[in-house]
């Protein structure tokens, strides 16, 4: 009979409840989520859909700002209102019904029109981690955009208009350490072997091995040996073009053992070495994106206000320029490969130790910078720098633009918009339509087609032509699209809201956890054809 196993610390109720998402963003991502405070402006169907997908994974807290009373129409598109609540404050009921989803989340509401709140208390919105604004008129959107831009608080604006959805993320600067790329080449450094790796590989005598061991040496070993031999015969150069790589593959193939009949044995590790030639002979370098980060002003000119990200980036830059000899710290992970256990583990440890050695240097450098800037010693922990170094090759910085600027007719998006509008498959046309709807609303205080489709088609066309004129775009408002938008009459389709709601919630989670790359910066969803597109303004 089995002995009762000790209860694992990882089996807490909380880690069980959130297990399926902890596998994605980890305990540290979860901790960031649980300490954030999200503000939702306007608890429409779309608004509550966004919050639903944030309350479930357990953000720390939310606040709803909405001055509207619940109407019958609201019930047809909003799941977090109930039939008995018509006439009651929308903020109150939505807060109640959303809180009921997850006792781990705190929530409150302000039953006040967002415009008034912004006027009376301009700093109200600047205390949140993220602000999400739905169905906001231009009149309120622009000052809110400016205020949050100044306060460096991310703002996500989302719309659901008939069969079209829209989301716009405004952020000044967002830094990502863990971007979780879907595919990535292993960081093996075969072109720039570090001393410990070279010593290890040189200490292995392939010829003296019996067949079994020979067929179970991790492919890195024969590949590096062959590469070193190649380079000694080719003036230190790597196989560069197709022909050289083919020849190099032949060299590796020659190392496969032959049986007594002169037929090559099946040595999977050598086949793996041959398959690895393509990426392993690429010179190890630093991607353009990471180079840009290392050259960034925020990296070069640190101040006592610099974020830990930039201090670590600077430490990284100093490492690259000194100990790293032009290279980033070694990632330290070894992909699985055909090998016996001891051979693989020995190699794995060599990579791990070198990676730790690099991270330690970066950490010392970071500590030095922290000290020099007069900041607290514990601002950057050793674990922080290790994580930073492990992901050094996929760091990302997103710098956005403000919505207020985008809406200013003087901004230089005209050629971009015109160019996109000329492409019949581009969804840019819906961006223009939605801007037209904003303008229409500002002018007539209703949505186009809310009451009269035919009459509003003409008016909406006028609004759009005016916009295009202001921007200096030569395109014209396309009749079909204007008609379609007027057909919607400002109605909200729940399933379109649910789609955009899910997307916006995930973008908010990216901003809060600092993991995964957010949309930069405008996203359009066309439910008619099930297509989406991203634009950068």
């Amino acid at each position, binding site marked *: 009979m089995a002995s*009762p196993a000790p209860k694992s610390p990882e089996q807490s109720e909380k880690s069980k409840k959130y297990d399926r998402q902890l596998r994605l963003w980890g305990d540290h991502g979860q901790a960031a989520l649980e300490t954030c405070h999200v503000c939702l402006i306007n608890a429409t169907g779309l608004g509550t859909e966004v919050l639903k997908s944030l309350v479930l994974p357990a953000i720390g807290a939310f606040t709803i700002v909405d001055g509207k009373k619940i109407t019958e129409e609201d019930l047809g598109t909003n799941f977090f209102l109930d039939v008995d609540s018509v006439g009651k404050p929308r903020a109150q009921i939505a807060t109640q019904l959303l809180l009921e989803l997850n006792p781990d989340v705190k929530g409150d509401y302000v039953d006040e029109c967002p415009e008034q709140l912004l006027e009376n208390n301009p700093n109200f919105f600047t205390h949140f981690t993220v602000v999400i604004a739905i169905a906001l008129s231009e009149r309120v959107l622009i000052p809110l955009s400016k205020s949050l831009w100044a306060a460096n608080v991310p703002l996500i604006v989302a719309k659901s208009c008939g069969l079209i959805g829209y989301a716009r993320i405004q952020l000044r600067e967002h830094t990502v350490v863990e971007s979780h790329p879907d595919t990535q080449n292993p960081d093996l450094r075969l072109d720039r072997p570090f001393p410990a790796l070279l010593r290890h590989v040189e200490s292995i005598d392939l010829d003296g091995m019996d067949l079994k061991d020979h067929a179970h040496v991790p492919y890195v070993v024969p590949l590096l040996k062959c590469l070193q031999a190649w380079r000694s015969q080719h003036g230190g150069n790597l196989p560069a073009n197709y022909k050289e790589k083919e020849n190099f593959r032949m060299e590796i193939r020659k190392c496969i053992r032959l049986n007594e009949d002169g037929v090559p044995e099946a040595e999977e590790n050598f086949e793996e070495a041959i398959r690895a030639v393509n990426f392993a002979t690429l010179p190890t370098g630093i991607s353009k994106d990471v180079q840009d980060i290392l050259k960034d002003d925020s990296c070069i000119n640190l101040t006592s206000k610099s974020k830990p990200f930039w201090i670590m980036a600077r430490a990284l830059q100093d490492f690259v320029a000194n100990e790293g000899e032009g290279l980033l710290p070694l990632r330290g992970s070894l992909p699985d490969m055909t090998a*016996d*256990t001891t051979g693989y583990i020995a190699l794995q440890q060599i990579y791990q130790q070198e990676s730790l050695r690099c991270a330690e240097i970066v950490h010392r450098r970071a500590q030095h910078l922290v000290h020099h800037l007069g900041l607290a010693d514990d601002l950057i922990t050793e674990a922080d720098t290790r994580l930073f170094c492990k992901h050094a090759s996929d760091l990302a910085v997103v710098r956005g633009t403000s919505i207020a600027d985008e809406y200013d007719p003087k901004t230089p998006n005209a050629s971009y918009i015109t160019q996109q509008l000329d492409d019949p498959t581009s969804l840019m046309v819906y961006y223009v339509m939605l801007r037209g709807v904003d303008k229409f609303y500002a002018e007539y205080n209703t949505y186009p087609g809310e009451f009269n489709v035919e009459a509003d088609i003409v008016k909406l066309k006028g609004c759009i032509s005016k916009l295009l004129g202001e921007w200096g775009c030569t395109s014209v408002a396309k009749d079909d699209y204007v*008609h379609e938008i007027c057909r*919607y009459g400002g109605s909200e389709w729940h399933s379109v809201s649910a789609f955009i709601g899910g997307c916006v919630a995930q*973008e908010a989670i990216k901003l809060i956890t600092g993991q995964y790359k957010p949309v930069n910066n405008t996203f359009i969803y066309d439910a008619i054809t099930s297509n989406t597109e991203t634009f950068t303004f």
Partner: protein
Amino acid sequence: MDIGNETLGNQDHLQRRWSHLRKLLERSGPFCHPDFEPSAEILNFVMSSCKVLVIGAGGLGCELLKNLALMGFREIHVIDMDTIDLSNLNRQFLFRIKDIGKPKADVAAEFINARIPGCKVTPHYSKIQDFDEEFYRQFHIIVSGLDSIVARRWMNGMILSLLSYNEGELDQSTLIPMVDGGTEGFKGNARVILPGISACIECTLDLFPPQVTYPLCTIANTPRLPEHCIEYVKLIQWGKENPFDCPIDGDDPNHINWIYEKAQERARQFNIGGLTFRLVHGVVKNIIPAVASTNAVIAASCATEVFKLASSCCLPLNNYMVFNDVDGIYTYTYEAEKNPDCLACSNNVKTLDVKDGNMKLQELIDSLCENPSYQMKSPGITTVIDGKNKTLYLPLIKSIEERTRENLKKTLNELGLKNGSQLIVADVTNPNTIIFSLRMPKENDMVVE
């Protein structure tokens, strides 16, 4: 169109609550389905006639039920064989702590019916396999949010078997579209299947990623990863030591703990790092990461398609959309192609006329070999009787041939074959098995077609 009270019967669809949907359904637009005729009647159909089946009341299912209910659907059935677990609560938003252990279908239906007055969700706490064709035939549209390939393939087979053809022409009234969604972490897909017309689940079976497996000899002798150690305990050590006298149950914490301990021992022995309880749990239960947001997106996309199919307000998705929001938000929409050799949907059931039930199996086989359009060589024949597979005759497998040879002398009646019985026939002359539906005049059937 005539919109008299007689046809409407019910005025619910005129409520102000539905004015969002009514705008789109009562107005024409340039991007509508070519046959779309705006009318108040459409919403009435959605609300009072259209019957939708939701398969699965999990991450996608909860979202689907909410979406459909808010898109006006009222006649909704939901099937789910699972009960609620704590780890569901991070995304299956119709469930609470107090519901743990209760059937998902029941709790979900109750919640929706309480929140959306007029909506009538009927729950079925059962397996999809517990229902027959009569049950499935009652629905206009089926939408599935499943985590199992087997279940998807079963449903696919079911809707294909409901199709009927007249003179080779598909009878469209027998077509039940299936909208299918799936998610994994930040990735997902939504698709529309028009059985018999567009690519089916079986046509695109290779789109499902194969399960991650490791060579047995690696697991046994040269483990390198913590996963190898876990698989060793799962595949080899458990069978040898049989610690609980039963197969592994991924939901039994004692089992997981035992595997964790043993895998840890093995990892230590081989000096392998990185073995955590979470990893053990994930490998043993084959856990797929899941978040609320991806489920919301994919279920929304599916619900939009259900509404399009029911209302004809737009052309449905043609026919596959993939979604990934790891790096920004990426989607790709394309037409998955029908496989002309598909095991499931290229198999239009062919009609085989026989004179009566007194025909012997040998005569039937002879006729398949002599028939100029088949000219079979040595057909093997099986059938399904009362849901059970039955081998009628397999000429090429000695042990079966010996035991089915007797059947050759039996009549179709004696073998339990009736008018409409299906014969599954495999022969070297065809790359696929062919399904024949037997047509024999019934003795007391006086109806002439």
